[in-house]
């Protein structure tokens, strides 16, 4: 886990060895991992219900035999190639080399007696990027404020931020806005489910549609994106630094609607926040996922929270007359 922040990541644990549960759970607890165990005859179908994972732990006898487990891992890789998989080998069989085809499935292996490869796995593939504490804290604050300003009838709460390697889009509607500075270049993305968002907005007394509903929802998400982006810039991006020397590199983004997949052209893990909008009167709630994808540049050593003097401090929403 990044030593700078309290980030977590969700990992799928495909392991039936009851005798090892405690040790694996302890490892997860000590290293900022949320272990999700699947008990299912259809792992792939169950896997589809998780869209924000950091990696997969799989035991060599999970599917019965090593060969069957390799087959299952191959299917998982074909479906979710962004998710790194680490194999737990039984101590007795650890000396036997793995079949060559398994090299394509697993990034490494470990035994329950030696978890050091697991530490390497999470450092290399999950917590490979260090995010400053001030950045994490600030993103949560400004996003909750921005959401609350637009969803006055709902209570907005933020979950603990986490690291994601998945490239699956949640819901049907998302917004995307570039982030450019001397210390980061990439995108912020907000994702949500249209029907759920619609039910919250409709239930909010006094909302008048001036356009057809889905465009209204689009615009609402767009405005939230704009508010968060603006606050992010005000707090973390000094526009005057090094503008002339900033990189202009761009890479294509690819969206596949059929498969609800988006690629930013980078293998880097993504920083994810989840917000819940709860209508206490009706019990309806909506999840909004926020991704930060610093695919073009991330140099945390240059990160600096902009210090505002007391004289400069005007609360948002207040009129500053010149």
């Amino acid at each position, binding site marked *: 886990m990044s030593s700078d922040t309290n980030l977590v990541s969700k990992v799928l644990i495909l392991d039936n060895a009851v005798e090892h549960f405690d040790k694996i759970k302890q490892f997860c607890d000590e290293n900022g991992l949320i272990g999700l165990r699947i008990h299912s005859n259809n792992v792939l179908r169950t896997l589809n219900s998780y869209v924000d994972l950091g990696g997969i732990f799989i035991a060599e006898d999970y599917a019965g035999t090593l060969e069957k487990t390799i087959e299952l891992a191959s299917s998982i890789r074909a479906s979710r190639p962004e998710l790194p998989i680490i194999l737990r080998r039984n101590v007795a069989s650890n000396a036997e080399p793995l079949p060559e085809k398994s090299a394509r499935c697993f990034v490494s292996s470990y035994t329950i007696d030696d978890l050091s490869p697991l530490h390497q796995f999470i450092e290399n593939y999950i917590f490979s990027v260090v995010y400053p504490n001030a950045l994490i804290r600030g993103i949560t604050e400004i996003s909750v404020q*921005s959401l609350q*300003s*637009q969803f006055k009838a709902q209570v907005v709460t933020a979950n603990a931020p986490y690291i994601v390697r998945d490239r699956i889009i949640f819901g049907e509607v998302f917004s995307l806005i570039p982030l450019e500075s001397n210390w980061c270049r990439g995108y912020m993305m907000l994702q949500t489910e249209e029907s759920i968002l619609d039910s919250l907005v409709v239930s909010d007394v006094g909302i*008048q549609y*001036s*356009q057809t509903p889905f*465009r*209204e929802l689009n*615009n*609402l998400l*767009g*405005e939230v994106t*704009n*508010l968060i*982006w*603006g*606050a992010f*810039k*005000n707090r973390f991006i000094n*526009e*005057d630094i090094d503008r002339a020397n900033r990189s202009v590199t761009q890479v294509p983004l690819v969206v596949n609607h059929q498969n609800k997949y988006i690629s930013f052209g980078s293998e880097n893990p993504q920083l994810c926040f989840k917000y819940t909008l709860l209508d206490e009167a009706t019990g309806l709630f909506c999840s909004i996922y926020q991704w930060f994808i610093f695919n073009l540049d991330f140099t945390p050593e240059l990160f600096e929270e902009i210090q505002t003097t007391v004289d*400069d401090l*005007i*609360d*948002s*929403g*207040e*009129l*500053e*007359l*010149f």
Partner: protein
Amino acid sequence: MAKILIVDDSSTVRDQVGEFLTENGLDFITAVDGKDGLVKLQGEPDIKLVLCDVNMPNMDGLTMVEKVRSDLGNTSVSIIMLTTESNPSMKERGKAAGVKGWIVKPFRGESVLSAIKKLIE
């Protein structure tokens, strides 16, 4: 009656601010970007106050303000920026162009009413 021009590419903001103005018995029209804002100002002599976003496609808000003063020769209409931006150098550019005030979003109704009271009533 004095009119207020709301210039913002976000229909959510135009609706929210417009609804607030209506509730307070104020008349308004809207524009979707800086270019549209210039057209609306030219066509509506009753506009006394402009609430204008900064980041808009086609023409940003500060460029629009500069053109209102230079190209339209309109130095009497009061302009308040309603924006997510709080960058000091942007505010300086706004001041130099004759912007009368700045509100960082999300807007508060009382701030808009305060602007109206101070600038056009």
